[in-house]
């Protein structure tokens, strides 16, 4: 199932979305995949990150690393 894009507001953290890290770098960034789309996020606040980690991302930065289920 693909998660539909939620029609919620980006300003607040409520749309912080879980992304899976598919590549680390360059610098303090990582590429995460959300709903099949890839985007770069800043990872200074959750370092170190590794490929396969799930990150909670908001406004272009990762805010937290999710516990592995």
């Amino acid at each position, binding site marked *: 199932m693909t998660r539909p894009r939620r029609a919620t507001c980006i300003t607040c953290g409520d749309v912080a979305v879980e992304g899976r890290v598919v590549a680390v770098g360059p610098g303090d960034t990582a590429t995460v995949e959300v709903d099949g789309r890839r985007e770069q996020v800043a990872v200074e606040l959750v370092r170190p990150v590794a490929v396969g980690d799930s990150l909670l991302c908001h406004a*272009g930065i990762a805010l937290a690393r999710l516990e592995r289920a």
Partner: protein
Amino acid sequence: MRFVDEFRDGTLARALAREIAGALPPGRHVVLMEVCGGHTHTIAKHGLEDLLPPGIELVHGPGCPVCVIPMGRVDDAIWLAEQPGVLFATFGDMLRVPGGRGSLLEAKARGADVRMVYSPLDALALARRNPDREVVFFGVGFETTAPATALTLLRARAEGTPNFSVFCNHVAIAPPLRAILDSPGVRLDGLIGPGHVSTVIGLEPYRFIAEEYGRPVVVAGFEPLDVLQAAAMLVRQLADGRCQVENQYLRVVRPEGNRRALAAIDETMELRETFEWRGLGQLPASAFRLRPAFAAWDAEARFELPADRVEDPRACQCGEVLTGAIKPFQCRVFGSACTPEHPIGTCMVSAEGACAAYYAYGRRAAGPPAKVPAR
């Protein structure tokens, strides 16, 4: 999908609703406030109010940062966007918020260069790509969003970007909660705490609610089962006579929050003495401004803002909606003069506003939603 499907299981949801009904002392009417607009959306979208026993009432809190920005600050943003040479970058949600002089979208239609960004880092990139322009980023949001602005400021300083500044309107979540708990007409038995703000600030900032006001708090995630489980945890606390700050959102929120994010905020921002909140008035130490060390990137230091105060429209009852005093459908203009297409109040503009949630999911009156004709 991992982290989603398992939190939307209807069978588990009904089991949780039964658990809540079982824990609720007979005849007891419990009022719970979900602080965060994201929770309001989950509740409206998944019909959680219809699932909960009648003894549980949910009221919607002030946790939509778009909804709490006063009109005067929107006017200041429009003024900034209309200054010669300025490229004004904002989250999309702020584009349609009406100030006293229209919205940023209308300013854009008049010729102001207003751009929508998903991150303040994108605004900084715009400044790099447009060295002949003054790029101003409209910083709005609670402690969830403030770290992104803080990181951007730290990068701007490291890079020495001269043509970038932030119009800082970041706000803190705890002061409005205290203001609501202090307001005379509001009766609350417990609070469903905001999940993603808490990834940054942790649990400690809510402790005063339990200790000074004697109300339990459960920080919750944003899927329907998260919200139901939080309600169950609150009802259990009330039934046991306990009053604690608990964490339902264990998979994301650490008790201490994200210390690096807090350090980034603290390095770049400080609390203002006071800030005006829509519906709540002036609240002391409730919003952030940039520290003097970052004056070079502070739009309020670089520009002489008009900073006029603007009264809210008379018909608008956003203030009462934001404090949970009335339900959105009880507002006199809800769904008639005020709709998502033509909003009067911010609660209808912001996708996260309680009124927008009620409108979108057909909750035009008390009880289950009416059938809404397809548009």
